[in-house]
């Protein structure tokens, strides 16, 4: 069975600080992996995705994520956050079929 765990419901960081949002997955095969962001009163938007190859993938707005097969993880990182990064971040996995499984989301609050 596939599942996605985002262990942190809420993360608060100061503007300019570095960020890591954690994501662990459970899957019988190496899935497709995604990070989405949801700004207030909007739908979800793709930040980045991983299919294969280099385990570090670059996304929009300075975000990157690193896939670790040994740890079954796909953590999201950013070197220096901006107040506009405040949003809800969702990790998602898709085994090689038509299903996508979302984590519960992490609310990011960036303090000025």
């Amino acid at each position, binding site marked *: 069975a596939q599942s996605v765990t985002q262990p942190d419901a809420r993360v608060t960081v100061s503007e300019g600080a570095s960020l890591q949002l954690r994501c662990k997955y459970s899957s019988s095969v190496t899935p*497709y992996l995604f990070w989405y962001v949801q700004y207030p009163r*909007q*739908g*979800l938007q793709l930040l980045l995705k991983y*299919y294969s190859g280099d385990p570090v993938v670059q996304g929009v707005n300075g975000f990157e994520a690193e896939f670790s097969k040994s740890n079954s993880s796909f953590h999201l990182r950013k070197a220096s956050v901006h107040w506009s990064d405040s949003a809800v971040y969702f990790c*998602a996995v898709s085994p*090689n079929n*038509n299903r996508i499984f979302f984590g519960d*989301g992490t609310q990011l609050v960036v303090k000025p």
Partner: protein
Amino acid sequence: ETAVFQTPNYHVTQVGNEVSFNCKQTLGHDTMYWYKQDSKKLLKIMFSYNNKQLIVNETVPRRFSPQSSDKAHLNLRIKSVEPEDSAVYLCASSPGAGNTLYFGEGSRLIVV
């Protein structure tokens, strides 16, 4: 750039009434979805529709029914709303299995 369009954005109604939400995508995708997002931001898939084949989530109450006239449209009808139906309903489309989801901005339903 928004390519998945949902109407209405917001709807308030009374218990027992019927509600319909409309979704149209202009991306030429074969697959469309309805997700329910509750007040805690948790996402639950309700339906997916792939090349005229409807895949139903067994946990969805029978008062919910999807309606599709063609692969660009997937509407959602709720026959007799209940208070627990209050949520944001997100429509999405994708080119196929394992691919990026493109979301609309959501339709917020409030049942009083």
